């Protein structure tokens, strides 16, 4: 058995890759790709008559395979199916880091899952509160209730939009500009930031359209997403590159943070660095840039 460290609610999640929990060939070496999180899927990737088999496969993978620093999330079946309760039991018993709630539409959905997770933690002798939660918003109702969903539980670390189902509800299809989902993405981002959780974009399914994929990831970063859901290992590297800060941003963040700490020690609130005014409002962003830079191997200092 591989003991996993206690999951961290806030960690780097630029890339979250789906993998079918029913396919041993996929899940046995998922950690080699260097993805930030893997999402083992019990939901749509698994045929209705193989839901049971997928759980056995998931349980032994969680117990046997050393995923190292890769976060292990499991996507469970929707609350409108007969599968989700057993899905939760196996996730908790196997020691998954977190659970992704599919088709989440309300705070009540989060609370329903949380209750079952807590019961499973008690049943299997897992520390209560260990298992994290995230929600996938897949419908207009989910987007409208984004804030209450994000704020529903201290276990919640983030929300993701699920483009396929959402576009189906909205009767739209993917566009080059992203205008079809612009409002939904924006509303979810505002809700996530208001609740203090992370926010992830949907998958890009056309693996042959590299330009389209890169454009969408760039837009994700500009809009303020923390990361993106992925379906193929070849999507990981470009996401990490686009989400990485530039050298200039890292140098600036380092200068700001160190100048701020010096100024603070002297009792100075606002000051200038290379001719630009800096005060306390700039510092959390600069610290986040440095943390990201550290994760990308671009910064080795000790300010963060």
């Amino acid at each position: 058995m591989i003991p996993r460290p206690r999951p961290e609610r806030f960690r780097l999640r630029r890339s979250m890759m789906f993998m079918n929990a029913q396919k041993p060939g996929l899940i046995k070496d998922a950690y080699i790709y260097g993805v930030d999180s893997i999402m083992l899927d019990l939901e749509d990737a698994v045929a209705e008559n193989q839901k049971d088999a997928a759980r056995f496969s998931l349980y032994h993978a969680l117990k046997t395979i050393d995923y190292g620093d890769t976060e292990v999330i499991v996507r469970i079946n929707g609350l409108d199916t007969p599968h989700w309760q057993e899905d939760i039991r196996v996730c908790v018993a196997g020691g998954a880091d977190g659970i992704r709630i599919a088709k989440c539409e309300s705070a009540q959905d989060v609370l329903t899952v949380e209750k079952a997770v807590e019961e499973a933690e008690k049943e299997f002798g897992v520390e209560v509160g260990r298992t994290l939660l995230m929600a996938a918003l897949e419908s207009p109702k989910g987007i409208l209730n984004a804030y209450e969903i994000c704020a529903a539980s201290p276990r919640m670390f983030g929300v993701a939009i699920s483009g396929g189902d959402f576009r189906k509800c909205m009767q739209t299809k993917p566009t080059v500009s992203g205008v079809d989902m612009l409002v939904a993405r924006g509303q979810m981002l505002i809700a996530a930031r208001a609740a203090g959780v992370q926010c992830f974009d949907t998958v890009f399914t056309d693996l042959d359209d590299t330009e389209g994929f890169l454009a969408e990831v760039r837009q994700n970063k500009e809009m303020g997403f923390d990361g993106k859901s992925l379906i193929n290992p070849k999507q990981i590297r470009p996401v990490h590159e686009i989400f990485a800060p530039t050298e200039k941003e890292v140098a600036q963040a380092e200068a700001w943070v160190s100048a701020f700490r010096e100024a603070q020690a002297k009792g100075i609130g606002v000051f200038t660095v290379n001719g630009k005014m800096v005060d306390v409002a700039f510092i959390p962003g600069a610290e986040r840039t440095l943390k990201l830079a550290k994760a990308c191997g671009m910064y080795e200092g000790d300010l963060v």
Partner: protein
Amino acid sequence: MKIENNAVAGTLESSDLQVAIEPIENGIELDITSSVMNQYGRQIKATVLETLERLEVTNAKVTIVDKGALDCTIKARVECAVFRSCGKSDKNLPWGGALK
């Protein structure tokens, strides 16, 4: 567990295996075909027998077609076939108990 009905679990994809189980009266009858029989046949047999013993299955005909599965996959597929044969594979499974 008593094997009640014929049941199958797993696939013939690479890194997987297919397990078929049938009720019989006189002990364990095990038939293994594997793409890595020469290197791992003995290990596969040991894992299958150990899993059946853990589930207290004493009478069964078990037919395995292995495509190079890891031990954890062998356990998962054998367990699934046994629980399916009893109609108990869907809920309230003994994770961490008989299943480990």
